[in-house]
């Protein structure tokens, strides 16, 4: 039989039947249903198992606070664990499965834990499982881990996409219930730019679940009219199915828009959009959340919160049972009995713990005042309840109301501390809501609907006025006032029966008591010791009840007991939604060099450096190992000529009358007297004396310099230079601009590099050795007038140049040079060959400039000028940095040239030990920072740091790599392995 509990009416579309499955059973519901309402319509009450004791559990609430009805939705890679059925909009083909049980849901093998529960109370695990020592990791913990957890994560890549977005408004209104809609109407009519967001896919909040009439029409109709009015206004953005999950600094709100049901239609669209909303002000109208009462076996399927029972009836036209009972401590519980009765549902009893006169008569129901429910029966579905007066009543649905807690979560995201309000027996927001946030309606503790409407109405207008808009001339909607009276009820003595406080985490009133007894008295200690409020609902339904129990245990007030801290997110948010588009290749953007297309055509292998994709090497047909390609590139460059794209190096044009003075302050060496047309190598330190970056700077005109930085530090060096200029020496006439992307720059290296360049440089420019010597720089033209910059600098140690042309010509220049170089057997080389040649020449790079090394450590102490102040000068002179036994950079070569050749790894990362020393921290003398196979020397070589290295050349030590199992003897040598005199540079 289908939907046996479905009644007439409700805000569902009975013309659209939706088919879904639950644990493989095919079921039907209607458009407008949630998964929970459709399950209840089909009389499915048992929907899950609890975390610790695997107790049978049913749907408790109608909202995002649901602790029990959490399920796996979908299958395969689409499976989404721990999804609350109460907020999952029903769609065709939805697959839902209950979780956290072994065997069928109705007969969970893990329910055995419930039997042992006396031993498994709060904190039991801190007191045992300690013997034997090794058993924790091998036996106990795996067993605990397997039985813990809830749903199962599909261990496949999330197949959905997510997006982000940015929205601005004057006023963000959170919650589209009676107060939220009222606030939106006045704020919008004032002219303010408004965003109205609600976590429900249907705006209206509780109005959709209640029978109260507003302005003479049903609440849901009034809400619909208001939404229609707002959606027609240009200054209003409505965001349904959107949860404001966090309040961040200065009016930034995190909002998750759920588009799951939309994406079923067109699965290419993002499943969710994570909006960052910038709001000048916000009005929180998030309503209230009902709490339970702690009585014996209050957790059986069929026991629900009274407001939820009413929602299922009024909004979804679903009766939660055939014989309903109501247990309450406040007037609002009675409304459930009244509404059910009005729909023809049998209400057998209303039990009110207060000793007052009945709030109203309920036809056909027994009324018990000053009475409590103390026990229940029915393992998989409620069968009966037992009252404190000894009566047992048969019932299949118990609606419980312990009162309503203002939903003040978001007011506490900046560490606001809720205050206790005795009138409503709950916590209300304090005055420390995040700046810019105001609260209205039940979220503020205003429990009477008519007052809540007025409050929202007034606040919408006054906040808009604060922002300079006119006052709204609308009148507030009205509804008859219904009083809300309550007497707190934190639970009733229930003997041996357990009274559950946190349903999902299986925390009972006794657990709270035991924690208090063991000295855990702070609310935070109790939470951490018992796990109260740590489940997927973060205590939304449980915490106030738990605090009430604590306060009673310890004989203190609610205020003294206090609350734990509300933290974002308001309700759980998929990790994927925070990542947004940043997945795979889109983790961050990609930068391509000017020669990228050409390199792709050559079959280059690329490597990512920062965000740049650079050619690592260019394999030729027949080469099977990267080393073959790299060795060839090195040998061919050193014997004739090679070309490498070095565009990625940072390039900064610096202009002004004070540039040379400025450079003097940022480099260790002197730049004041650098002549026009010359380039100089410069080393830059941090203020603490450690090397920061190095590069060359050329003077192209009296007041025009161009600096290069390493690829990795291009951005941070530019920032540092701006700091030095704007903050330290603001009056220097210096103007910097990055020209990294303005020029495509290539290194042309090797004995034939000049010959190659002579073919493309326009003939009026003399680039002969005499006319354009080592370290010369000039602005020239190439290929018939294309402007270019030429620098005679060398990283490879060969006769070499760097040539730069406007980037638009970059691809073309590469092709032209390869064509012009054919006669010299020109070779393109990648970053690997570049690295090999720099190590052969002993140039420090990233692994040496690792932020732990000073100019002295790098063997560049001689460059350091003592005649001027520069960044890093003074602190570089500190005693510990000047010790001769600091680790200094030198070269290392194996005593036995064949060492490591068959191992397939270099010396990099090996530590340095004396020939007969044991590998201990005390004996550690240093390490190898960079190492490669040198095709020129025919063996592995390395740069590294060893104590007092500069004075130990010629000594033998061991390079020990215990990680990969090598231990070789090496000679400490000069880092300049190749052409140490530098003759080739100047040819």
């Amino acid at each position, binding site marked *: 039989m289908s939907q046996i509990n479905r009644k007439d009416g409700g805000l569902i579309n009975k013309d659209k039947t939706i088919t879904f499955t639950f644990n493989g059973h095919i079921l039907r519901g209607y458009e407008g249903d949630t998964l929970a309402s459709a399950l209840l319509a089909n009389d499915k009450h048992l929907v899950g198992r609890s975390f610790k004791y695997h107790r049978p559990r049913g749907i408790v609430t109608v909202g995002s606070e649901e602790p029990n009805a959490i399920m796996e939705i979908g299958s395969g890679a689409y499976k989404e664990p721990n999804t609350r059925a109460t907020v999952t909009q029903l769609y065709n083909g939805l697959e839902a499965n209950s979780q956290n049980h072994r065997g069928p849901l109705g007969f969970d093998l893990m329910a055995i834990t419930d039997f042992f529960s006396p031993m498994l109370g709060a904190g039991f695990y801190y007191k045992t499982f300690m013997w034997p020592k090794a058993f924790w990791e091998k036996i106990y913990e795996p067993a605990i881990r397997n039985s813990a957890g809830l749903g199962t994560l599909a261990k496949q890549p999330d197949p959905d996409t997510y997006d982000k977005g940015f929205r601005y408004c004057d006023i963000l209104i959170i919650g589209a219930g009676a107060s939220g809609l009222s606030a939106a109407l006045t704020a919008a009519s004032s002219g303010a730019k408004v965003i109205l967001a609600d976590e429900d896919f249907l705006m209206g909040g509780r109005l959709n679940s209640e029978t109260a009439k507003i302005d003479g029409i049903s609440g849901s109709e009034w809400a619909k009219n208001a939404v229609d009015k707002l959606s027609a206004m240009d200054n209003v953005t409505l965001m349904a199915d959107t949860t404001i999950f966090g309040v961040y600094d200065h009016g930034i709100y995190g909002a998750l828009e759920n588009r799951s049901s939309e994406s079923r239609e067109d699965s290419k669209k993002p499943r969710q959009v994570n909006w960052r909303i910038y709001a000048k002000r916000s009005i929180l109208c998030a309503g209230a959340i009902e709490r339970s009462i702690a009585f014996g076996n209050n957790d059986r399927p069929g026991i629900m919160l009274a407001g939820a029972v009413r929602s299922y009836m009024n909004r979804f036209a679903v009766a939660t049972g055939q014989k309903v009972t109501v247990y309450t401590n406040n007037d609002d519980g009675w409304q459930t009995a009244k509404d059910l009765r009005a729909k023809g549902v049998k209400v057998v009893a209303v039990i009110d713990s207060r000793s007052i006169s009945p709030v109203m008569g309920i036809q056909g129901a027994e009324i018990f005042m000053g009475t409590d429910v103390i026990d229940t029966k029915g393992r998989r579905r409620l069968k009966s309840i037992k009252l404190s007066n000894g009566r047992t009543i048969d019932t299949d649905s118990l609606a419980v109301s312990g009162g309503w807690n203002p939903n003040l979560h978001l007011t506490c995201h900046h560490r606001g501390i809720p205050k206790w309000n005795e009138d409503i027996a709950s916590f209300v927001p304090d005055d420390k809501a995040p700046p810019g946030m105001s609260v209205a309606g039940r979220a503020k503790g205003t429990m009477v609907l008519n007052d809540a409407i007025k409050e929202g109405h007034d606040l919408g207008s006054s906040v808009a006025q604060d922002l300079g808009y006119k006052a709204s001339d609308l009148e507030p909607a009205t509804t008859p006032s219904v009083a809300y009276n309550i007497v707190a009820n934190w639970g009733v003595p229930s003997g041996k029966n357990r009274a559950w406080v946190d349903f999902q985490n299986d925390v009972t009133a006794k657990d709270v008591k035991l924690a208090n007894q063991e000295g855990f008295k702070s609310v935070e200690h109790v939470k*951490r*010791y018992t796990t109260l409020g740590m489940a997927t609902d973060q205590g939304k339904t449980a915490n106030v009840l738990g605090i009430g129990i604590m306060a009673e245990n310890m004989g203190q007030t609610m205020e003294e007991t206090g609350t734990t801290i509300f933290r974002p997110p308001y309700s759980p948010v998929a990790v994927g939604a925070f*990542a*947004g588009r940043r997945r795979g290749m889109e983790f961050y953007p990609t930068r391509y060099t000017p020669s990228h297309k050409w390199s792709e055509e050559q079959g280059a292998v690329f490597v*990512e450096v920062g965000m740049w994709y650079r050619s690592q090497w260019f394999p030729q047909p027949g080469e099977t190992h990267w080393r073959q390609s790299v060795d060839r590139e090195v040998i061919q460059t050193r014997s004739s000529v090679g070309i490498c794209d070095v565009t990625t190096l940072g390039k900064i044009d610096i202009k002004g009358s004070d540039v040379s003075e400025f450079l003097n302050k940022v480099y260790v060496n002197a730049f004041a007297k650098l002549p026009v047309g010359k380039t100089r190598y410069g080393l830059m330190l941090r203020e603490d004396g450690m090397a920061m970056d190095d590069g060359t700077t050329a003077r192209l005109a009296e007041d025009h310099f161009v600096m290069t930085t390493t690829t990795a530090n291009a951005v941070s060096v530019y920032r540092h230079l701006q700091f030095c200029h704007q903050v330290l020496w603001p009056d220097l006439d210096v103007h910097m601009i990055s020209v990294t992307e303005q020029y495509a720059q290539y290194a042309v290296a090797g004995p034939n590099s000049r010959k190659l360049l002579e073919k493309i440089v326009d003939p009026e420019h003399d680039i002969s050795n005499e006319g354009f010597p080592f370290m010369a720089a000039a602005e020239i033209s190439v290929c018939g007038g294309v402007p270019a910059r030429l620098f005679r600098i060398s990283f490879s140690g060969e006769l070499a140049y760097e040539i730069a042309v406007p980037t638009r010509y970059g691809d073309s220049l590469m092709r032209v040079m390869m064509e012009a170089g054919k006669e010299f057997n020109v070779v393109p080389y990648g970053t690997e060959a570049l690295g090999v040649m720099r190590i052969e020449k002993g140039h420090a790079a990233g692994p040496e400039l690792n932020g732990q090394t000073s100019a002295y450590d790098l063997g560049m102490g001689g460059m350091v000028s003592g005649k001027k102040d520069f960044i890093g000068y003074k602190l570089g002179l500190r005693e510990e940095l000047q010790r001769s036994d600091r680790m200094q950079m030198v070269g290392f070569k194996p005593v036995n040239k064949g060492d490591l050749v068959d191992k397939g790894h270099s010396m990099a990362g090996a*530590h340095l030990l004396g020939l007969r020393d044991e*590998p201990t921290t005390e004996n*550690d003398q240093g390490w190898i920072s960079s190492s490669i196979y040198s095709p020129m020397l025919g063996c592995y070589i390395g740069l590294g740091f060893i104590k007092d290295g500069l004075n130990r050349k010629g000594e033998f030590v061991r390079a020990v790599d215990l990680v990969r199992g090598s231990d070789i003897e090496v000679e400490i040598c000069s880092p300049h392995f190749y052409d140490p005199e530098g003759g080739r540079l100047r040819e």
Partner: protein
Amino acid sequence: MSKTRYSAFKVVKEALTGHKGWEPTWRDAEPKADGYDVIIVGGGGHGLSTAYYLAKNHGITNVAVLEKGWIGGGNVGRNTTIIRSNYLLPGNEPFYELSMQLWENLEQDLNYNAMVSQRGIMNLIHSDAQRDAFIRRGNAMLFADAGCEYIEAKEVKERYPFLDMDNPRFPIKAALAQPRGGTVRHDAVAWGYARGASDLGVDIIQNCEVTGFNIENGKCLGVQTSKGEIKAGRVAVCVAGSSGRVMAKAGIKLPIESHVLQAFVTEGLKPVMDNVITFGAGHFYCSQSDKGGLVFGGDIDGYNTYAQRGNLPVVEDVCSGGMAIMPSIGRARLLRMWGGIMDMSMDGSPFIDSTEVEELFFNGGWCYGGFKATPASGYCYAHLLATNHSHEVASAYKLDRFRRGAIIDEKGVGAQPNLH
């Protein structure tokens, strides 16, 4: 030592007799009128372990631990629970290795199950340069007997099939693991040390905020608190993120800035991963708690703050890091995010030292690495307080090291705390 010895037998017995026999885990004390030999300011993990080791190793039991709020409420109660001793520099590695050894025997020592779980920690390697750096680190670890394991990509894939081995940005080329690393139930560390110290006679005084120091002629004689003045032979400050605020009351400025580090936990899930995985290239590390939540974190927010909350950019960065290495995490929901205040030092390494004020000592600058250091920090601080000498593994942690240039900068980013 303990009044109530914990055991499986005791748990069963109490279960059968209605749990009436459980006593408070630690004694809630009020300040003694005649003061203490040592007052420890700060009832976090480090303060409580200092008290425990002072009593246990050095027999100094006339000790009070003063806590502004509730014990264990600072970083020991809000971290990602990771322990490891995979450090690079000789100033650090032996210290963290001592800490690891203390973890390994902690539960038997304390008779308290803090769930020390050496499930292993694995750092993923994505580039050749990173490999070289990790080999250097791995060798430093092996030299210090901390143990490590180099895992080739193929094996990483076999062990952790949910990792994205071929990510176009961060292909996993290998991993460096420390099998002895793992996780510990963080709150239980505070409670276990509190119980141990309390049983040995230490007074644990909660809701007792230190508002000033009584200093005369350059010597500290006691503290002023919200519960009145308390005399002390020696005062040992140990307040992590509050270091700046508290030491300012003694007129001392530090090479420390306070920053917020956010941490995250997902909803509970059936077992996904059994170890700790660290993705250095993208700022993400993750493990799964015994309750099933994936616990993860990344970088600090990067601005000075004492507010225990962070902002969205880091949340998004961290989650992106997660998606980059384990793209199945996308459908796990983030349940809670929180922030702890880190005492970020100028070189990323801590201090355990005396100060310019006689009888006033300082322990701090732990950055975001304080949790794993808890046992050794207390052990070495107690050693210093009891003997006036630095313990040999903590001898580099001097306050004047920057004046001398004896920097311990693992990351090599210099005197900028938010980069460590």
